[in-house]
């Protein structure tokens, strides 16, 4: 287990997350892709903190911030989905884009 190996796994998670975020038609599935990207970021931060920062507390703080961002993203995202669904019986990304008109 080295920093490089941890970062490669993180890169893998980010890659899969990117694939999901780009390919999924549904807004909810798109959020799953974003979460997976965050997961990779979390792992990368932990790797850096553990191997390269000598356990500086700021590294852990950054990890907490990532989790907070995930929570905020989820709460806001789902609230938006509910609001949109109430007006348009759909949750698909395409219908979100048509709403912009």
């Amino acid at each position, binding site marked *: 287990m080295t920093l490089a190996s941890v970062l490669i796994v993180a890169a893998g998670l980010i890659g899969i997350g990117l694939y999901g975020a780009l390919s999924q038609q549904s807004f909810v599935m798109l959020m799953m892709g974003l979460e997976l990207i965050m997961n990779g970021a979390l792992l990368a931060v932990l790797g850096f903190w553990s191997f390269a920062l000598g356990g500086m507390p700021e590294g852990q703080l950054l990890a907490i911030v990532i989790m907070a961002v995930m929570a905020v993203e989820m709460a806001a995202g789902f609230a938006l989905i*509910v609001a949109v*669904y*109430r007006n348009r*019986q759909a949750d698909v990304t395409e219908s979100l884009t048509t709403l912009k008109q």
Partner: protein
Amino acid sequence: MAVGGTPVFVAAGGGILGAVEALRLEPALTPVATPRAAQVLLVVGEQRPSDRIALARIHAQLVEPRATVWWRTDRLSGFDLGTRAPESVSDAAAFISAQATQSDAEAILLDDAPPNPWEGIGPHGQGGKGMMGGTPYGRPMAMTSDDLRDGLSLDAYTATFGPYLTQWPPGLIMETTLQGDVIQSARIVEAPLAQDVLAATPHLELARLLRLLELPALAERLVRAALANPSRAATGLARAVRWTGVLSAIPAGLGRDERGGDVRSRMAGRLHALAAGRPAEPAAPGDVAAMLAGLEWHEAALVLASFSIDDLRRAIVSPAVRMAKDAA
């Protein structure tokens, strides 16, 4: 959690509920709420011939090896399975318990086929065109419909519940549309069946409510008191029930009847009656189906249990009677 002896699912009919409560106390038996947990299907009391299919469904849902026992009733025509238990409560319990161990399984009366045919036809094996079409695994998928309470149109689930739901009055069949756990609409298909005198004592009416409030042990105490002497004032027992805080557990204003009473006040009335050793006052439920619409499932069950079975029967004109009236 179930405790006791042989697990039986009691399919209760009419004029029998008090006797069933007596049978439930027998150490040789454990009544269970679902046929998945039962070894024996116990059919008791007067059965409507129209419930034959429902009974066959319950019978099929039992765990193998199935056994059917009829008690204080005749076999329904077209349901030629099982044996008759002796009349007396203790003999019947021993008989039923013995049936569970004999292992020549009964066959299912219904056809072994999915409710609708299903074949994978889409490119990914789906049942029909698109995501919602077809009948995957022999059953269509739920479709969206408007909602009573918060305006989010999500899927509605329509099903007939009963007549053998143990948490409902025996014989009650309702076609219910649910969204989530909230009843959107209910249509009463069959009214509950008339029951014996014992079932109308405040003890047993309270016991039914207490089971829904997750207090089975206290409910059992009430049943024992009723079987010992239903007309004796049980002040201590009423106080014990009150002390558990049941009245404050029930939301205020739930299930208003035509006289302005709610579930809480009707339960308080039962407790007074129990303490005074007299029957509880009758209530006038009004339109039961309309009352249940918009309620959460547990609340709806509490509303149903808060009326005596006679009250419910009076309020629900049976559809057959209504049809006759319409024809006239």
